[in-house]
């Protein structure tokens, strides 16, 4: 019975997925996108920040509290990809025996672990999340109501897929370097033929930059956005020393890919940076010799019908990327089948 059910679920190839990103926004808020594949073309049907109860549990005791979600109608697709951003989530590169193509996640020492051959030569990506968090997430969306969970991913892994939604990335043939900026960290990912071949994590994110600028200017972080937008200050001299180490990593990554695969990435993509800071990031990048293109979820030209509501804040906009990445992972896997 269980085998038949598993086979039945596996046969279904999701073409309509809602991506839900948890842990990126304050408790009770979840970034949600609904994506669909129709005629080989992806569509972003809806994107918003939804008020949903509960927060990712921090231990087995809190995981016992049953929470169920009911999504608003625009997000009631058959399948959901849940993307969790928690301090306990781990994504790392390992050199190990490649798992079989249909290998499932394993429970190891109270942790749920999924491994996938990702990068040559023989490097695997390994995602780990505490078992209680996986179980709590798997019970969030009740049976018999749309959607139900078809995938649980860690945010770092889902973010690796975010550039696949970018039209610039597609135009570059999938060979590019992407900076995916989050609140506390930035992922530097080099892609070769749309597959990540290099992943670096820098402890520098939007909050780090904002804090650095605010302390350098001697103002409250909350006032920074209005001051920059009104051009009352020039934050570039303060921003350059903060961002330069990161952009130097881009140069290293490009060199590595050029030497390793004999074709250097010609496209640089920037994700997750708030609109008021984005021009500063791009200027600093240009000064350090890295040409970057900013990609915002609301302007994803690759999606035929961007009927999504624009997120209210930069933080909310940034939180959409893991949701997009999570949904894309499911859609791409389905289209690959």
């Amino acid at each position, binding site marked *: *019975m269980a085998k038949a059910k598993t086979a039945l679920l596996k046969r279904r190839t999701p073409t309509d997925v809602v991506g839900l990103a948890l842990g990126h926004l304050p408790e009770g808020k979840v970034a949600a996108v609904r994506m669909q594949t129709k005629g080989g073309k992806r569509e972003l049907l809806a994107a918003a920040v939804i008020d949903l109860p509960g927060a990712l549990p921090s231990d087995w005791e809190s995981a016992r509290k049953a929470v169920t979600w009911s999504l608003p109608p625009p997000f009631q697709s058959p399948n959901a990809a849940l993307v969790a951003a928690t301090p306990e989530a781990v994504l790392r590169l390992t050199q190990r025996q490649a798992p079989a193509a249909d290998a499932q996640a394993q429970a190891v020492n109270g942790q749920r672990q999924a491994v996938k051959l990702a990068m040559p030569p023989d490097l695997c990506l390994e995602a780990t999340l505490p078992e209680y968090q996986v179980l709590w997430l798997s019970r969030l969306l009740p049976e018999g109501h749309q959607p139900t969970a078809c995938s649980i991913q860690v945010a770092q892994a889902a973010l690796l897929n975010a550039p696949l939604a970018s039209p610039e990335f597609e135009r570059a043939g999938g060979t590019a370097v992407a900076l995916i900026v989050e609140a506390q960290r930035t992922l530097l990912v080099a892609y070769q033929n749309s597959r990540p071949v290099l992943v670096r994590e820098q402890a520098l994110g939007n909050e780090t930059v904002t804090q650095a600028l605010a302390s350098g200017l001697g103002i409250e972080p909350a006032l920074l956005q209005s001051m920059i937008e009104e051009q009352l200050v020039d934050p570039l001299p303060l921003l350059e020393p903060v961002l330069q180490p990161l952009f130097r990593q881009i140069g290293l990554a490009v060199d590595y890919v050029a030497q390793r695969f004999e074709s250097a990435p010609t496209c640089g993509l920037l994700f997750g940076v708030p609109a008021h800071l984005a021009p500063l990031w791009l200027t600093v990048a240009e000064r350090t010799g890295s040409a970057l293109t900013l990609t915002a979820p609301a302007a994803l030209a690759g999606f035929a019908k961007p009927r999504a509501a624009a997120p209210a804040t930069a933080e909310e906009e940034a939180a959409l990327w893991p949701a997009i990445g999570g949904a894309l992972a499911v859609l791409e896997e389905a289209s690959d089948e």
Partner: protein
Amino acid sequence: MNKAIHLNLLRAEERVSSSRVRLHVMAPVFAAVVVAGVALWWAWLWTQTLMAQSQTRAADDAIGQLQAAFKRATDTTGREQELKQQLAQVELYRHGAARYGVFLRKLAEQMPATIQLTALEFVEPPPQVIAAPAPRGKKAPPSFGPSSPEEPVRLRLSGRTPDAASLDKLLGVLRAPAFRETIETATVPKGAFRQEQDARGGSGQEFFRFDVECTLKRRVFE
């Protein structure tokens, strides 16, 4: 080739369907429906069997009653045939009845005074036992009736007379037109006219004893 990195921490057996028609709900429901269907079918078959048995018993009872009624009807028909035949025989006898009252009264009036009849006997053939038609398989009960459509009737007159002329006179009376409707022939059989002597009273007077045989009109059973 799959471009996306999909590190799915959800195991396949943990996935649940969003369809309102759920396999683990529908499977028992379907099984229950099938079982209920089979049970209903068996119940229907059982009911049909009971009804068939009841109908068979009713038919057997009806057949038994009909057989008894048929036997009664057959017996009644047989009895009716028998009675009809008896009635027919009675009717035949009624047709063939010979009435001699008038004849005897006339005979008494015209009897010569010198004739003394000592016996007058209608000689009829003995009754014949004739088997009447009986129902098939039944033994015919004994029945009485005429042996032929016509039956001869004879009349024997015995008496004495003092002389032969009286006898001739009697024969003349019997052969007279007045009795022609009743008597066809009247003869004295050979040796039936003999002389005897009266021993009574010691007188020794002689007289003649005679017998006359008459052939009467035949009885016709129609």
